[in-house]
């Protein structure tokens, strides 16, 4: 890789403007700065290392091709994150079409079990180190269906509103609300059960 000694000092905005004029080293620096974040978003949605690497790479290629469309209304990394999210959603939709949905999954969507569970009144994350907390959140995310996980990620980590999530996931706002509700309840209960396991 070529060395560009002045580039690390330059802001994202300036690098984006250079890249928009076709400056490849500027884009390379942007990739270097944000590659982990873009990969992490792909991994959190796909839960598969190979898919996440491929999709984050594809996102960067699309980012380069569409860079002229970027007007700076959001930060560059937010814009790139939206690209990788859309690619992941496309991929997940393809996967979903390929597999037959099980009865369990349909019940999962309806959230019958979670609705009946009593509210978790004790904070199950109290006293946890941040690293441990993140590891448990990761483990819990891995136990959610992709629909529940995706809604949770888009709402809690991407800070998107119900309407925007519905648009991206191509479903109704009611479905988003329902999935988010049961994803949160399942998350709280998983965290609580691990706390109990730890205590016993």
């Amino acid at each position: 890789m070529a060395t560009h000694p002045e580039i690390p000092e330059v802001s994202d905005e300036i690098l984006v403007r250079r890249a928009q004029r076709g400056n490849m080293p500027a884009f390379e620096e942007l990739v270097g700065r944000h590659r982990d974040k873009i990969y992490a978003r792909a991994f959190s949605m796909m839960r598969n290392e190979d898919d996440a690497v491929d999709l984050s790479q594809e996102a960067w290629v699309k980012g380069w091709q569409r860079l002229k469309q970027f007007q700076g209304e959001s930060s560059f990394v937010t814009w790139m994150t939206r690209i990788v999210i859309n690619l992941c959603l496309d991929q997940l939709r393809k996967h979903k079409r390929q597999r037959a949905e099980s009865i369990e999954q349909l019940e999962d969507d309806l959230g019958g079990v979670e609705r009946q569970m009593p509210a978790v009144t004790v904070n199950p994350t109290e006293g946890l180190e941040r690293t441990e907390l993140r590891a448990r959140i990761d483990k819990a995310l891995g136990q959610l269906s992709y629909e529940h996980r995706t809604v949770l990620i888009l709402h809690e980590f991407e800070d998107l509103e119900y309407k925007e999530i519905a648009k991206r996931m191509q479903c109704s706002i009611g479905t988003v609300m329902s999935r988010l509700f049961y994803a949160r309840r399942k998350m709280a209960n998983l965290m609580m059960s691990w706390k109990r396991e730890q205590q016993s």
Partner: protein
Amino acid sequence: MNAELMLKLQAWVDGELPASEAAHIAEWVRKDAAAAALAAELKMTRGFLTGNEPEVKLPESREFHWSKIQKAIERAEAEPSPREALPWATALRRFLVPVSGLALVAFLTVLSIGIFNRDTSTGTTDELLVEEETLSRHVETSTYNSQANNMYVVYIINKDVGDDDPMDLDSDMDEDMDDSVIQ
């Protein structure tokens, strides 16, 4: 507590409920212990998730990752998609189709004047259907000449209709919508 109320409670926690309904839910939470407990759980879950997204590192080096991206970009740029090549081809086609059509009509008009001005008393052919050769692959022409009915018809068929219509941008738009970026 029914499912609809639970979802309204959540929307209230997320600040997505209209003000009129929000006041009603707030009052319900104040009076109902089960609603208050559920609201507290939803807020707590939101609280421990915020800012605690699992950290994951790209499992390959910066150099290797970039080299793959760079190759993919170069490959994509070396092979422009047919749609990228469309603007000039479309412009050329849009110019050539009407021009070749007009030229053909002019040619056939001149030809028909010659035919009708001929002395038909010795004519040997009453009706004639001929496919004319054109230089454009987008246009097919045929002529029908009936001396008995004193009729001469020119058919000009645009072979592009229903095929690769340059004005058909739907598929392109759908593709863009799929990957649209909202900033």
